[in-house]
C-alpha cells in the first residue's frame, strides 16, 4: 500500500517522554496504519507550533497553553490540538524540605528561582491563587535555565518552578536527595490547565482524515507499549540519542507516565480526550495570567474529530 509521509515535530530533544513515539515506530504501529513517520527534535513548544501551522509538519507535539497563546495572536492559523497526551501538565514547584518547604503555604516569604520564559513559571500565579499564596511575599529570583537546579542544590533558592520530570531528576543528580525534595505538581493544587497534546495541521487533516486517525491510534499504542515495557521504550530512544543516559531517561519516562499521562482521570475516562468543563475552567484560569485578544472557545484549539468516541484505553 501507498505510505503517507507524516513527519512529526517534537517540542524538545529526544528524552524519555519521547520514547513512546520511537517505540511506536519500532513496533510497527505507524507502518500498520500505512504511515511513514520521521521524528524531529525541537527547541520548545514555540518551535513546534509554527512548524505545524505552516504545514511543514502535518503533526507535532506541544504545550496546549502555548497553542492557546499562538492561536490568540495568530487567529485562524491552521493548527489545532487533536489528542491530549499530558492530561496533567508537568508544571511543578519543587522545594527542599531541608529549607523548610513542605507544602505550598511554606512558599510564603521564601525565595523562588524561575527562568522568565519558563512554562511552569508562567502558570505560577494561578497556582498561587488556588493555594492562597501572596505573590508579593515571595522573592522571585530570575534564573537562567542552566542554573536553576544548581541554585536549588546550592541552597541559594528555596524552591524552583519547572517540569516535574526534568527538574526533580536534575536536582537529584546535583545531590538533592529525593527525600529532601517536595514536588508540588500544580495540577494537584487546583491548576485546571492541560499539558502537551498532539497537534495537527487542519489543512492536512481535512485531506487525510484517515491518516490522522491512524496516527493518533498508533501514538496511543506506543504509549501503551511504553507503559508495559519501559526498558524497550528507552532502547528505542537510545538508538536515536546515543549520548542519553538510559537510567535517567527511563525514570523520566516513568515519572511522566505516572504524573502526566496515566492519571486517574485518564484511567477512568480514556486517553486523548478532554473534559469540556475542565477546559472551560482552564481558559478562565489562563485569563488571570494572559490578556486574550478575544476570549477563546475550547473548540478553537482542541478538536476531538479524529479520536474514537471516549478516547483510547490506557492501563498499567
Amino acid at each position: 500500500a501507498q505510505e503517507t509521509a507524516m513527519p512529526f515535530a517534537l517540542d524538545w530533544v529526544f528524552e524519555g517522554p519521547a520514547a513512546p513515539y520511537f517505540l511506536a515506530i519500532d513496533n510497527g504501529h505507524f507502518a500498520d496504519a500505512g504511515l511513514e513517520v520521521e521524528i524531529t527534535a525541537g527547541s520548545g513548544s514555540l518551535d513546534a507550533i509554527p512548524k505545524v501551522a505552516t504545514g511543514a509538519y502535518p503533526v507535532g507535539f506541544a504545550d496546549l497553553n502555548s497553542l492557546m497563546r499562538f492561536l490568540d495572536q495568530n487567529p485562524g492559523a491552521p493548527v489545532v490540538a487533536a489528542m491530549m497526551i499530558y492530561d496533567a501538565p508537568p508544571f511543578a514547584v519543587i522545594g527542599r524540605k531541608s529549607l523548610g518547604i513542605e507544602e505550598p503555604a511554606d512558599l510564603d516569604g521564601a525565595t523562588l528561582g524561575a527562568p522568565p520564559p519558563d512554562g511552569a513559571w508562567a502558570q505560577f500565579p494561578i497556582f498561587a491563587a488556588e493555594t492562597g499564596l501572596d505573590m508579593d511575599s515571595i522573592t522571585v529570583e530570575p534564573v537562567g535555565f542552566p542554573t536553576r537546579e544548581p541554585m536549588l542544590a546550592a541552597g541559594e533558592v528555596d524552591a524552583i518552578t519547572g517540569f516535574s520530570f526534568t527538574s526533580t531528576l536534575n536536582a537529584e543528580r546535583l545531590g538533592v536527595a529525593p527525600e529532601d525534595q517536595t514536588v508540588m505538581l500544580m495540577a494537584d493544587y487546583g491548576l485546571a490547565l492541560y499539558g502537551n497534546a498532539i497537534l495537527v495541521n487542519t489543512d492536512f487533516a481535512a485531506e487525510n482524515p484517515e491518516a490522522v486517525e491512524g496516527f493518533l491510534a498508533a501514538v496511543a499504542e506506543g504509549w501503551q507499549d511504553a507503559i508495559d515495557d519501559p526498558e524497550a521504550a528507552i532502547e528505542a530512544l537510545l538508538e536515536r540519542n546515543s549520548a542519553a543516559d538510559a537510567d535517567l531517561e527511563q525514570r523520566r519516562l516513568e515519572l511522566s507516565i505516572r504524573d502526566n499521562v496515566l492519571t486517574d482521570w485518564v484511567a477512568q475516562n480514556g486517553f486523548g480526550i478532554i473534559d469540556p468543563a475542565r477546559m472551560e475552567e482552564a481558559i478562565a484560569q489562563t485569563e488571570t495570567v494572559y490578556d486574550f485578544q478575544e476570549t477563546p472557545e475550547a473548540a478553537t484549539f482542541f478538536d476531538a474529530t479524529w479520536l474514537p468516541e471516549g478516547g483510547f484505553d490506557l492501563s498499567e
Partner: protein
Amino acid sequence: MLRQIGVPVLALLVFCLAWEALVQVNGWPNYVMASPSDLPAAYARFWDLFLLGAWQTLWRTVAGLVLAVIGGMILGMIMGFSRVANDALYPLLVGFNAIPKATLVPVLALLFIGQHDFNTVLMAFLISFFPIAVSVGIGLSTLEPEYRDILRALGASRMAIFRKIALPKTLPEFFGALKVAVTLAFIGTNLVEIVSPHGKGLGALFLSGQTNSNYPLMFAVLIALAVLGILLYYGVVWLERIFAGWAVRPAG
C-alpha cells in the same frame, strides 16, 4: 552631504519596501515573517519595555567593552613587548576565541550563579577583548625602530617612548579593532540574555515575544537591536574621528 545622508536613507526605504513586498506577495502569516507595517504597533504597545531593555543591554555592553579595552590593552602590551609571551599566549587566545561563546554562557552561569549583570558584562568582555589584544600586540611589535629611535636618541625612558610614540601610533589599529569589538560585545550581551534568560535587556523582550507567539514583537526587537548596534558602531567611529582623526583616510 545630500548624497551621504540621502543614499543610505533611500537604501533603507527600498529595503523596507522589498521586505513588505516579499511578505505580502508570499502571503506569509506573522508566524513565518512579520512585515514592517506590523512593527509600529509593537513599538507603541511596548515602548516602555523597549526603553528599559535597550538601556539594560546598552550599559552592560558598554561596561563589557570598557573592560575589554583595558584588559585587551594590557594583554596586547604584554604580547607586543615580549616575544616569548606572544608565542605562549597567542595559541591559547586563538583557542579561547574559537570556542563558540554560546557554549560558554551556561558554564559562566554555573560559575557565577545568579550574578546576571556580572555574567553578562563578563561575556561581553570575553567575546570582545581578543581583537583589541591582537591589534595592540601587533601594533606594538611592528612599531618601526625609526619611530622609537626619535626619542631613544634623546635618552628618553621606555615609559616616555610608550606614551609619546607607541601608544598614539597604535591608535588607528586600536580603533579598527574597537569597531569589531563593539559589535562583538553587543552580541555577547545578547547571547547571555537569550541563552541564559534572566528577564533583562532586549533579549528578554525578544524571548517574551517568543513565549507569547507575538511575532511582530520579535521582529520589532530585531530591528531595535540593529538600530542600537548601528548607534554603538558609529559611536566608535565618532571616537575614532576625535582621537585618531589624523589617520582617517579622506573619503575618495
